């Protein structure tokens, strides 16, 4: 597995729609400056629920980003996905005419964990309020996990291999690994990532049973992983799509290789079994490093899962130490998601976007609202830290028991 692949999978474009920015540039500025956007949930029908704080996207205007015929047949999570895909393709220098020239060479893969709850709720209200004849046909596609992949491919006319990963929060990383495999098998370009919209009333009620959910009402105290004040996580909406492209294709097109997807692995240790997630996450890290041909000491920064549940935080800190050895307590670790919340399967995508941008800028974004770490980690807390980085490790775990690790190398792989 450590032999170099003939077709390396590179990141050539990034598109972000997040609570702290509706463009990649705005996202990075807010992320690197540690701007906290967690706030009281104000969405209609949600104010009375015990879940009080989340990362909401407030200034995204769907009709400005997406044609009406696609808006009427899709949920908010797919609106984010289509908008982020546009941004990623534009960032990669791939216009509509470029992708039309060889549509079979461009595929799509997304991950989703929450689905189209807002759309689904509206149609279910029609069903029980007025009757089955008042449920629109687009209900049959809009609320399923697969909707974003399908709509991105239809809207952009992309005819390459398509897929959907539904593997919990860590599925965001698995989707990128799926894209990397498609590239290695011969597809030139994959539009890959995850977006979520779990802040509609129905979707929120579905989450209330999770004991890991923070119900703290003060935004600056609701999500503080790795501290003795850890009280669970807060959800978020949005996400990111990236263009995963064969390095050879990027070179032929003359576009920069931002990073390479060097190694990935996923494991499963069972729902809410956080103590066991230590072993699963450590194993995912080891296998991902092995695939990347990467020694533990080469990891320059770790983007942590940072669930914010004491038992889970402890397991993650120990997993990093188990897999990276003594380097695990020295390597800078960050969790910028404390500024925006955890966007289900899209949470690790925001971390991947931040990791690539961090390596490019030589700046590790901070972990806002987190002080007094109670684990043996070098967590980058209040302020960003300037440092040269070549390799980043992104970690993710899901409430249902998935664990995943992704190794990213900055720039073109053969430059190292």
């Amino acid at each position, binding site marked *: 597995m450590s032999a170099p692949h003939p077709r390396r999978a590179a990141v050539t474009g990034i598109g972000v729609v997040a609570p702290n920015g509706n463009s990649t540039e705005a996202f990075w500025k807010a992320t690197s400056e540690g701007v906290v956007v967690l706030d009281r949930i104000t969405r209609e029908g949600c104010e009375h629920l015990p879940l009080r704080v989340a990362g909401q996207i407030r200034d995204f205007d769907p009709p400005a980003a997406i*044609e*009406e*015929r696609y808006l*009427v047949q899709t949920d908010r999570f797919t609106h984010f996905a289509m908008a982020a895909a546009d941004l990623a393709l534009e960032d990669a220098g791939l216009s509509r005419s470029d992708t039309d020239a060889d549509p079979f060479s461009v595929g799509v893969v997304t991950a989703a964990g929450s689905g189209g709850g807002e759309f689904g709720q509206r149609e279910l209200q029609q069903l029980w309020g007025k009757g089955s004849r008042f449920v*629109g*046909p687009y209900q049959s596609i809009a609320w399923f996990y697969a909707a974003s992949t399908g709509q991105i491919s239809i809207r952009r006319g992309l005819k390459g291999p398509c897929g959907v990963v539904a593997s919990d929060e860590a599925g965001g990383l698995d989707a990128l690994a799926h894209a990397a495999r498609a590239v290695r098998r011969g597809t030139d370009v994959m539009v890959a990532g995850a977006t979520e919209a779990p802040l509609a009333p129905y979707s929120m009620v579905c989450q209330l049973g999770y004991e890991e959910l923070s119900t703290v009402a003060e935004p600056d105290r609701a999500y503080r992983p790795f501290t003795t004040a850890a009280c669970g996580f807060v959800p978020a909406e949005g996400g990111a799509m990236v263009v995963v492209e064969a390095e050879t294709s990027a070179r032929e097109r003359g576009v920069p290789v931002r990073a390479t997807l060097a190694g990935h692995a996923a494991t499963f240790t069972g729902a809410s079994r956080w103590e066991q997630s230590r072993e699963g996450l450590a194993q995912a890290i080891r296998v991902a490093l092995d695939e990347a041909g990467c020694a533990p000491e080469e990891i320059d920064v770790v983007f942590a899962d940072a669930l914010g549940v004491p038992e889970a935080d402890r397991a993650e800190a120990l997993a990093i130490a188990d897999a990276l050895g003594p380097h695990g307590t020295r390597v800078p670790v960050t969790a910028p998601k404390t500024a925006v919340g955890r966007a289900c399967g899209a949470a690790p995508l925001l971390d991947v976007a931040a990791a690539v941008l961090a390596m490019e800028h030589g700046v590790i974004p901070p972990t806002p609202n987190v002080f007094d770490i109670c684990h043996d980690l070098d967590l980058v807390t209040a302020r960003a830290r300037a440092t040269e980085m070549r390799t980043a490790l992104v970690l993710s775990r899901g409430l249902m028991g998935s664990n995943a690790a992704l190794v990213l190398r900055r720039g073109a792989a053969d430059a190292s």
Partner: protein
Amino acid sequence: MSDRITVEELAELMKKAAGITVAPEELRQQQESGFDAFGLDSLGLLGIVGELENRYGTPMPPDAEKSKSPRQFLALVNSALLAGA
């Protein structure tokens, strides 16, 4: 409410059910074109059929949702309305 579905009403339904903006005059002139030329997919047409059934309180012919063109669709649904009247 008219007992016949007009091109104007079809244009309004295409907007409401499928988010497609088309001027009635354009729809009238291109009645032979396929619905796909306007960007209307099969689920969108199915939604229009459902909306008509709710509005007029009468079932539409099963083939209505399989119509290829506005002319074919209007002929089918209007014959059903005429028969039900």
